[in-house]
């Protein structure tokens, strides 16, 4: 075989292996607080913000504390690195990415999900009449 072909095949093989390994490693799987307690891996938990429990921003550490209920109904305190996410009040559900630490869920990222947030709905058309 020509050296060029060998180089080409090696590069392609290395690329595929690299990609597959990285893909599996960095895929942040969905879980709930129960699975988060069992494993040390970063996961994402979908649930909703428990609004009637206290949430606040710890200015010294720049962390936002709130309480979240996952889809199985388990309630857990979440500490997010950063400020209160945009659209937090509006969100019908939130997704926290992170892992368990010291009895709370330490999130590096919280996504807010607002279905049809920017889409016109019947309630808002009434308001602008």
């Amino acid at each position: 075989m020509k050296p060029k072909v060998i180089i080409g095949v090696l590069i392609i093989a290395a690329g595929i292996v690299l990609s597959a390994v990285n893909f599996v490693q960095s895929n942040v799987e969905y879980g709930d607080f129960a699975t988060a307690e069992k494993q040390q891996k970063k996961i994402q938990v979908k649930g909703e913000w428990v609004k009637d429990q206290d949430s606040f921003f710890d200015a010294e550490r720049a962390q936002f504390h709130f309480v979240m209920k996952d889809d199985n109904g388990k309630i857990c305190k979440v500490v997010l690195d950063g400020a209160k996410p945009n659209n937090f009040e509006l969100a019908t559900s939130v997704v926290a990415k992170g892992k368990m630490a010291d009895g709370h869920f330490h999130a590096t990222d919280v996504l807010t999900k607002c279905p049809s947030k920017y889409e016109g709905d019947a309630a808002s058309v009434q308001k602008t009449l």
Partner: protein
Amino acid sequence: MIGGIIIKVAFVAALAASLFYFRSRGLLRPKELNIARNAYHAATIGVMSAFALLLYFILTHQFQYTYVWNYSSSDLSLPLLISTAYAGQEGSFLLWALYTSIIGVFLMVYTSKKEYEPEVMSTYSLILSFLLLMLIFKNPFAHIWDTFPNDLVKSGVIPADVTNFVWLDQAKGIWAQFPVEGKGLNPLLQNYWMVIHPQILFMGFSSMAVPYSLAVAGLMRRDYSSWIRIATPWSVFGAMVLGTGIILGGYWAYETLGWGGFWGWDPVENSSLIPWLFCVASIHTTLTQRKSGAFVRTNFALSLLTFLMVLYSTFLTRSGVLGETSVHSFVDPGMIVYWMLLGFIAIFAAIGFGLLFVRMKEMPKVPVEHSILSREFALFLGAASLTFIAVFVTIGTSSPIITGILKGKASAVDISYYVKTNLPLGIALTFLSGLGQLLWWKTSQSTPFLKRLIAPAVFGAAITALVLALGSEEWQILLFVFCAGFSLLANLIVGAEIYRGNPKFAGGAIAHIGIAVMCLGFVTSERYDQKKTMALEKNKPAEAMGYQLKYTGYRPNADGKYGFVVEVEKDGRKRTVAPVMYFSEFTKSVMRHPDLINYIDRDFYVAPLSLEEAQVGAREIQQELVKEQPTQVSGVTVTFADFDMGNFEKGAMVEGKDFAIRAHLDVTDGKKSARLTLTMKGGGGQMPTFIGQDFVDTKGGRYAFNLIRIEPNREDKSQSKVQISVTPPNLPEAKPKDETLVIEASVKPYINLVWVGTVTLVVGFFLTILRRVEEARLKE
């Protein structure tokens, strides 16, 4: 009404243009050709009028149109009003169609000179007709009473106070009310970037249809080589425009949206990067085909993929398929758009790759003659790396779909995936972009070639040493820096040689210089940045990373939003930044915009996090406890044991006597435990008072516990609840504090390299276009 008709007419005209162009190919059929051209022009005029009409409706605030109501309002400034024409999905498809149709007019003139018009324009018109078909289903001219018939369509007598109505059927007494004000534009989009960025991006997307059309035309004609010369100027134009759009988007995210950096591997960003990478790869492989005739099939495939990836990216970001997994909240546009976009991809993939497959066997097989030390081979490896990056980014961005199919539950990859997979390829690319320039076509003599490597390698090592002086880094990053430095000097040397010969030929070298400089800027600003979260108490100076910071209060800006003024002092020079935070009614949340000071060798970047009001006491946490259920509260476990109702049960309260209810809590920090008793006292018709108790943990931290509310449950005692407040010790002590601005301050060294590199890259692209247009003209 009229708008919808215009779009339908334009669709029919574009489809007719495609058919007549198809019929006019091969033989000289001036009649068909004439009809086709007129039909295409009619379609273009139609799209332009539709866009003009939409603009007119927006500028005159005709909120009886759903689109106008949904995205604009009467209080927006003129530039922002114009930008609402493409702020929504329907409008952005219209903008895409607009640019596609206009570019087609130039393409028509250009290809007619090259006698390539019928096949190219037949394919291109088909693309335009598909965009218009989307617009028929996502019509920007829908009336609001058709969108909300239940709320707006009424019958009978019109109340006297309703003036904003329209008769739908006066004979039957059916009428509809329409809004007098629009919902307005998302505040995230309300800045000057919105005016230019989508325009450039869509111009780039639109021009990607040209290489596709030319590739299909080449396949139809069995012309496997000369289509490249015609296509290259367009590919380079597309790469230049889309590249500019991507970087502008990055700068928007950095400067206004406050993402902290200019690139976040977000699906929306990725979706414009993927076609760009395929386009750039095709520019490199077509270059090889011109020289040696190799890569015939590859060039077809890459040119086809460039456009197909525009469609796939549109599918990813517009169909709602990524809905759950991104920072962006994608609007679910409904199943029609989902299936239409999938059909769009399937049809154009089938046309392109179907033709390629049919013609594959008869394509000339060019024996590959170049050695490893040849520019061809370097170009091949470079294009392969670009393709790999494009594929990896595509896989990463599609991961919610992939995991959805494999595991049944969609999940996105972490950003680290992109860095890990693309860094080795980035190293290879930067190295090759220098190496390739130093190599000759076909083969290079190894000794003179190795001599030419010395200076760039030494320069790369010197740059690496300079970067190392900023701080240590992992070896892959340092290798990347070395290769970028290597490529920078190699291209400078080669560029200078070419420039002396013919300045127009230096485009490639200049573009590579731009890329190398950008790569250096990526590393210094993203890997050597320093970040610090600061709580700035008003008028109290604080120090961060060698800068003196002082928050001096907030002031209203011209637009009525508040800027939070921070004085930044460094080396005796005082400047101010005023990041903005405000509450948006539109998104019902706090919006934050950063501010920065651009020094020549770094940016000082201030992202606002929150404003803490002046406070006098410690912060307390409220918590509800259910009987006998241990609950975590700020580091301790609290279990509500039971109530002691005292004389309350005997009706003490009803009789107005004094009473006391006690709640027993078991508190533990793991090592130390205690039973606390919280008391609620009342009587004599007075509001009850609460008496708390403290818990001192192993480390001596004092937790103040108190009662807020009791909820005894007589039927089921295990459901009795109590609401308590806890003031933990690790939160700020009870000392008065002035208003405090919390920010994240960061220093981004040499970020200007990114912008300088970008401008250089665009200049390089531009020179290349000039050269390739001239070359294509010479071949006529």
